[in-house]
Every structure is written in C-alpha cells, then in structure tokens.
C-alpha cells in the first residue's frame, strides 16, 4: 500500500507510474466458494440469504433462506487516484476503502451509511443507500461504473467497466445497485470517486420546518456550493463544500452562524444522531424536495434538501403510504418492522409485472434473497 500523501500540493508532474494498484491487506478471492454455493443452491433449489457485514440486515423484508456471506471476498483490486476509479471485491470493508481514499484526499461521494463497523462495499451497493451529500453530488447508483455478478443462473457476468462513460449494452451495473441482492451476488464493483472538498463548513439558521423546506429549495436554485441541507428541531443546517473562496462568498449570501457540523452529518448518515435513538418505528419518506410538511403524526428530521424525510411514528403503514402517494413520493418502513409486512412502497401492477420478469431473467429459480425486497420477487 502507498504511503499517505498527507497534503495536496501542486504536483508539477503526475506520478510516473500513474497506475497505483493498491492491494488491501485482506486480499482474498472467495469467488470460487460463492459460485459453488450458488450452483449448489440451484441444484437443490434451496434459496440463499446473501449478506456482507450483516449491518443492514434490518433493511428490507426477512428471508428465511440459508445464509451465505460475501464478507470473505475482499480486497481492493485497483485504485488509481488520477482516474477517479476504485475497484474492490464486494466484501471489502467500507471503512478500509474510505481510509485508502482519504490518503489520497479523495472520498466516496455518496456517503453510504455503514450502520456498523463491519460494513462492506457490496452491502452498500446492494442497499443503494446514500448519505447527506446525495442531492447535490449524486446517489450510489450515479457512481457505480461496473460490476461483476453471480446471477441466479450460476453465471459470473461483467457489466459496465472501469471508465466514466460506457453505453455498451444495458446498464445492468446500475440495475444491480439497490436491488438488495435479488438479481445477483455482487463479486466486485467499480465506483467513481471524487477529490475531497478543500474546505467544508456548516451553517445553522433558525427556521421552522415549513420555512426551512422553502429555504433549502430556494438555495438549491442558486449557484452555491451546497453539499447537504437538513432541518431538525427548528434549525436549518446547511453544509458548504468547495474552494475557500467559494465558501466565503456563499457564507455571506446565506448568513446564519457557523457550527461544527462533522458530528451532525456523521450522525445523520449513520443514524447515530439522537433523533434515531429508541425503538419507535422509523420511516423513510422519499418525496419531491419542495413538498410542504406532510400531515402525519410523529417526529420529523428532514434531509437531502427536503427530498428525504425521516419520520418516527406509530402511524399505520396505509396511512403513511397514502399520504406520500398524494405528493408523488414513496415510503419505506426503515426500522421497527417485523420483516413480514411490506417494507417498500407497493409497486403499481405494470411495474410489478416488469419486476417479476426481470427477476425471472436473472434468477429464474428465485434462489437469491427471495422476498427480501418484495414478497413476489
């Protein structure tokens, strides 16, 4: 592994060998075992429950299949900072990847939540969750460039690649992202990475929720270096990322007071913020960003500039789903469900039919995480 570069200086010349293939300490190719397990499952028609670090087991419906772990399939296969691309095996620790990137002053732009110390890249991609930076920089799927997967037909296939632009064939790499392992077992993944911003500050402004939503949307319509916007407890928090000069001007435009935002954004990303504590059911409402406050009982934390709303509520699922349907959004029963009910927003008939056919196309025997996303898949 390369020595930490520490600070970013004006390199007169790029490094001689630009291809810096970094091999992580835990370099282990377990694909043969995974293929064998899949083929056995196909033979015996015994469905599998795929997991990585097992930190996101709560996410989605429960599946009573035989557990199989991809966590042993580890290693960063290549990382070239000037290409902005990193390829790693699915079981590679997210924390390790982030630390390797940090050495080169780069980061995973979509801030995937770890939800635990053993989170893997594969788990992050399969769940497709993104952190506070998402509305301004992009989602998990926006940064996935290519994957190698094991399908439910027992085939090891590669889609996409290690380059930024690629339209050869359908975009199956992005289809895999967020599909919760129901279409294939991810073996390795190439993601686009970005330079870490030079400077980052957080501003706090006193705003009631309704006004906060309006302000977040108004600011997003102006050329400002926003990288997160959240409203909670009567305060609107705005994170700015970029060059010092950009931030100085933007801070003057927006006003408010500067606060230490690092633990706030980390807490929202990882659900360690006090809002997420306790057993009360947690819902994720994904709605058009300018939607006014939705009339539902419970406590609310608004992230993603208004587009992602976390709700602690005892309200019944149909009530919640109906309310978000009305505004053109969807609701996920994130935590506190028993794993038997629908977790994800029900699909309209036509879409569900298409989902079934796609499942059939990748996993005809339904051996991969059956029922994890929807009962029918």
């Amino acid at each position, binding site marked *: 592994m390369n020595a930490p570069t520490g600070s*970013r200086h*004006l*390199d*007169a*010349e*790029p*490094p001689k060998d*630009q291809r810096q293939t970094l091999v992580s300490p835990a370099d282990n190719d377990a694909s043969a075992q995974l293929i064998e397990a899949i083929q056995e499952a196909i033979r015996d028609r015994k469905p599998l429950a795929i997991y990585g670090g097992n930190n996101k087991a709560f996410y989605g419906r429960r599946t009573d299949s035989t557990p199989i772990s991809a966590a042993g399939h580890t290693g960063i296969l290549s990382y*070239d900072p*000037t*290409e902005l*691309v990193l390829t790693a095996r699915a079981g590679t620790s997210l924390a390790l990847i982030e630390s390797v990137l940090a050495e080169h002053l780069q980061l995973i732009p979509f801030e995937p939540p770890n939800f635990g110390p053993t989170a893997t890249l594969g788990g992050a991609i399969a769940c*497709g969750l993104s952190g506070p930076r998402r509305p301004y920089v*992009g989602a998990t799927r*926006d940064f996935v460039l290519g994957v190698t997967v094991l399908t439910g037909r027992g085939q090891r*296939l*590669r889609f996409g690649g*290690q*380059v*930024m*632009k*690629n*339209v*050869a*064939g*359908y*975009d*199956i790499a*992005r*289809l895999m*992202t*967020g*599909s919760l392992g129901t279409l294939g077992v991810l073996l390795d993944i190439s993601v686009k990475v970005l*330079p*870490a911003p*030079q400077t980052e500050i957080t501003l706090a402004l006193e705003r009631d929720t309704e006004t906060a939503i309006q302000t977040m949307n108004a600011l997003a*319509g*102006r*050329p*400002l270096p926003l990288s997160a916007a959240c409203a909670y407890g009567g305060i609107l928090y705005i994170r700015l990322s*970029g*060059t010092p*000069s*950009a931030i100085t001007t*933007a801070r003057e435009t927006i006003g408010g007071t500067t606060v230490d935002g690092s633990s706030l954004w980390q807490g929202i990303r990882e659900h360690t913020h006090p809002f997420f504590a306790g057993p009360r059911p947690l819902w994720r409402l*994904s709605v*058009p960003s*300018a939607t006014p406050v939705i009339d539902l009982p419970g406590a609310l934390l608004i992230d993603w500039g208004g*587009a992602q709303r976390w709700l602690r509520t005892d309200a019944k699922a149909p009530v919640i789903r109906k309310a978000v349907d009305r505004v*053109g*959004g*969807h609701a996920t029963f994130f935590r506190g469900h028993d794993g038997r009910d629908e977790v994800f*927003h029900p*699909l309209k008939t*036509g*879409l569900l039919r*298409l989902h079934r*056919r796609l499942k059939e*196309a990748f996993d005809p025997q339904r051996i991969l995480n059956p029922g994890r996303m*929807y009962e029918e898949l």
Partner: protein
Amino acid sequence: MHQADTAAHQNAEHQRHDLVIALRTFLPENAILSEEEDLRPYECDGLSAYRQVPLVAVLPDTLEQVQQCLRVCREQRTPVVVRGAGTGLSGGALPLSDGVLLSLAKFNRILNIDPVARTARVQPGVRNLAISEAAVPFGLYYAPDPSSQIACTIGGNVAENSGGVHCLKYGLTVHNVLEVKMITSEGETLTLGGGALDAPGYDLLALITGSEGLLGVIVEVTVKLLPKPECAQVLLAAFHTVEAAGAAVAAIIANGIIPGGLEMMDNAAIRAAEDFVQAGYPTDAAAILLCEVDGNAAEVADQVAQVEAILAACGATQVRLSRSEAERARFWAGRKNAFPAVGRISPDYYCMDGTIPRRELARVLTRTAELSKSYGLAVANVFHAGDGNLHPLILYDANRPGELERTEELGGKILELCVEVGGTITGEHGVGIEKLNQMCVQFNADELNQFHAVKHAFDPDGLLNPGKAIPTLHRCAEFGAMHVHHGQLPHPELERF
C-alpha cells in the same frame, strides 16, 4: 427481377397496404407516410453510410396514437424503430425494410418548468437546447450538452445516455433525468423514477437510459435543472506532444480539481477546426487542452491560477484565458464544431466513440496512428479528456470502392484496442448497428444472453428496434470466426449477415 425478389416485393406491398389501412383508422392521412419519396428523409440517421427506407413512417401526435401504432404493429408482427431527430451516430434509428418508423417529432412541447423543484417536464421530441433556453428566465439550465444539442431530442438523449463537454462535472443524461414515462411494446404506460430522488424497486430509470429504443417508447421525460454558474472561463493550452497534454489532464485531477469541461484535440482536429471557425487555436500544436472552470468570480479566479500553474508545469507551450463570454464561446466553437469541421476537409468521415482509462491515452493514440498509417486513412482525434472518451474521426471517401469497408475495419480495430486497454467500445454514441461486432469482443455469450433476457422482460415479442444494440450469438460466432481465423469461416451452417 428474380422470381423470388418479385415475390418478396409483392409481399412487402401487401404488408404496407395492410398496415396503412389499419393505421388510417386512428391516424390522419398526413401522419402516415408510405410513398418512397416521403420515406426518403427517414432512410438514415447520423450514420449516413447506412440507408434503408422503412415500410411505413408514422408521425403521431397523441399518446393514444402511439399506443394504437404499437398495437397495430403487434397485431401485424411488424417491428418498430423509434426516431427522435435522427442525429444518432450508430445507426440506432436506421429503419427496417419490413418495419414501421415511429417518429416522435411532433411531441415537441415543454410541458412544465418548475423553478422551485428545479425540474422540466417535456415531451420526447423537445430539442436538448430548447430545455435550457426555456429555463433561462429562472437562472437554470439542463446540464448535458451534446454537440448536437441544437437538433437532437431529449428522447434520443435518454435512449443513448448522451453526454457533452460538461459531463465530467455535471454528469451524463442518466445523472440528470428524474422520471421517464414510456409505453411498452405491449401498449402499457409505465412511469419510471418520479419527482423524488429515488423510486421503489429496481432502478429501471437507469435501465431505460441508454437502451437505444429496444425496451420501450419514451413519451415523456422529467429532467433536473441546475443553477447556472455565476461565471465560467476557459483556458486554452497548447502542447508539443499528446503525452504532455494527457499528463496535464491527470495532474489537474490529481490536484483535486474537477473542471466544468476538459477537452483535448490533436493536431489534425485543431487544424480542421481552425480552418472552419477560426477559434484562434494554435495550428502548430500537437495537442490542445480546453479546460473550463466555473463558479463564483473569486473561485474561478483561484482555480484559473491553480490550473495555469499546473499547465505550465506540465510543459504547455502556450496558455490563454478567455477574457469575455464571446471569447469563451469562440474557444468552445472550435471543439463543438470539430465534427463538421472534419467533414469539410474530407468527403466523408467516420466518428468512433471509445472510452479508455486516461492513463492509456498515449498508447491508444500511438497505436491508432500506426493503424491509420497501415490502412492509409487519416485520423483526427477529439477527446473528452476528463472522462476518457475518445472520438477518433476517420477521414475517407465513400466513392472510392472498398474505402468504407476499410474504414469500418480500422474503426473496429480502434474499438477493440479500447477494450484491450480496459475501456469500452462506446462512451456515448451507442452500439446501434455500427458496433454489433465489437459487442462480441466486449461481452461473452452469457453476458449477451443476459442482455437478451432483459430485452425479453420488457419486450417479449421483440418488436422494438430488433437487431440493434445487442448482437445475436450467431453473429458473434461468425465475427469471432472471421476475427480469429482471418476470414476462414468454420461455421458454414450459420446464417451470414
């Protein structure tokens, strides 16, 4: 005419007749074209080396009519090729002799611009640039800017996942589309994505983007609008070698800068562009880089200084900075007109579209130059340098017997080279009919079969744009055979294309 030909001809006439009768029940007379002279304008897209008039062309202007067209085609087992503006460069909109060409040209209305949510909801036939123009009053714009943006449609952009010179920072079409309404070949209307930043279930929005008209007919698109940066300036740097220019690109990124645009042109492209638009390019340079930085005034000034230092350190022989909007536009004009510029100096040109890891640039350009020499065909290169997307333009003369074939062979070799160095055969122009053979190089049989299975899930009858984008395994077997054994075809039993 041979007897068989006569029979085929009569058959086609019957089919055409039946189609027209069925289409007339819901389409006005002037929305159905079936005479040779009316069909001519639709015989090709931007890949004009291939031409084919369709059986019938239709120009519906309501969704019901589109649905009815698909129903008729389903009933009469007639394939459908959708067409936007026909600027595609891979033959995606090339008609089929036994098929209907479905033009969405009449769907050209901007339905809604929402300045608060920063979205535009438009019909598929709306031109790319028209969206940004409509958003001007709100200080917003639609970021992906293909060079063809005055003509190409948003439906075509989604179908190809088109890019532009500003995609390095602001993303491709797939990053800027929120919702797509499409009609399946079975006549069902589906909404993919939505007004929120994600949708439940599989990411079908990503799947339809870049699907080249094979998965569904896109009938409405909602795109993201971005706030227009306060200011932007372009640096124009000249280099003695393409290697030095390539190293400068890597150095800019290594220093944590993601420019709004980062483009490279080689000497042949520079001279052609300069002749055409007088952009002020140094015609003696081996390569130039165009690097645009944007943001607020202070930020732009800082980044300009930083980039200038990097360029100088990387051996730029000349660095110029745009001092006005007019000059900025002029710097870009050369790059944006590179294709037509090359079109002026050669009777014909063939535009390739591979993507490579940037570090392989020197190797790929050197090999391309060698290939160019051995085929006796000149090549000019324009390059979306920031994201590794290379456009070698092969200069040829279609009137010289055999030259098109040699050009295609050379193009194919260049694409295979892209795959060899870890890249891809198409970054933004799509596979169409053009790169079917190279798909066999990039993907194995199982992967191609998986693509066919996805197609089958959307379009079980194979009605939409059959034969494009994903090759049949038969075709690959044949190509592989030709490829490996230099023309000795070991599979005589297979159908020849």
